[in-house]
């Protein structure tokens, strides 16, 4: 469902402030780079924001690291003024240690661990079965 909306909310802001990812350099295909940004809720994702509070590069670099930066001072200020962080921002901040660890991070890690265990159980069982068949 596509609906038209006017050039939004230049002066009037009934909405609230959020801390979320905004895609930077969106003219480049297949190379995402996110800015962690304090913006009004109803603004476009990549549109005008109030202040930039950091960045996140989702693709790992040559040393296999994903680089993240935070401006903790300003994040504290905005949360004190009543900004809401989105789920991925909350997860990243939990991993950084600024927030407590997000429950879904822990849950997903457990699920992945369980899946890996079942895979390792299956593969030696398969190896045993093949050995039995051969012998």
């Amino acid at each position, binding site marked *: *469902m596509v609906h038209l909306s006017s050039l939004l909310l230049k002066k009037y802001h009934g909405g609230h402030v959020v801390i979320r990812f905004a895609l930077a350099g969106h003219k480049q295909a297949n190379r995402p780079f996110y800015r962690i940004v304090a913006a009004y809720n109803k603004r476009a994702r990549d549109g005008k924001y109030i202040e930039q509070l950091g960045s996140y590069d989702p693709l790992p670099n040559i040393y296999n690291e994903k680089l993240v930066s935070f401006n903790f001072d300003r994040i504290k200020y905005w949360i004190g003024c009543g900004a809401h962080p989105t789920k991925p921002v909350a997860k990243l901040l939990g991993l950084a240690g600024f927030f407590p660890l997000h429950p879904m991070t822990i849950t997903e890690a457990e699920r992945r661990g369980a899946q890996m265990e079942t895979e390792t159980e299956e593969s030696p069982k398969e190896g045993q079965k093949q050995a039995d068949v051969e012998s």
Partner: protein
Amino acid sequence: HQSSYSRLPLSVQVARLLAPRSAVLVEAVRGRKSRTDPVAKSKEGRIKVPPPVDPVEMVVLKERYTEYKLIMRALRLEFKEEVLRKKYEEETGSQAEERARQEAEEHRALMGWNNEENLRMLKARILRVQKEAEEAERKKIEAAIQREQEQQEFIKEKEREILQLQEEVKNFITTENLDQRIEEALDNPKNYNFAVNKEGKVIKQTVLQ
């Protein structure tokens, strides 16, 4: 318990890329199709089911969420308090009074300097205006004198002309002199003829006719 991950809405991004550049901001919300569009052939008999939920995991997850929300709320209140305290310090802290006092002193000093400057300018202006008034007076007087002089000159010129005329009156021909003058003219014939040489020499001696 295999829980399926929810995929990102690719249709949204596709719509954004394929949409033409228009003056109005067109936002794609919740998929590409509208309510009246027919269902795709491949999805005709599909019944959507939510991902299966593991009750044990759900209990643990709920516990974790309550803890998380508690900590988050506490953090939020802390940060709010910090922000308020900073603002308070700015406005009515220990440094604020000193700063205000210093600013007031500066202001007073500057206003004093400004007043002195104004007085100086005032004195200079008064002197200048006085000088200009004197100049104007002098010029007026000079102009008056000049006019007087010119008037005098004019009168003298006219008097000279009158005297000249009075002298010339003696040679005029009136009705009484008419006969006498005619007689005189007839008695003394004057010859106005003259000749000019090629060298430019004027010869006035001619023969009377």
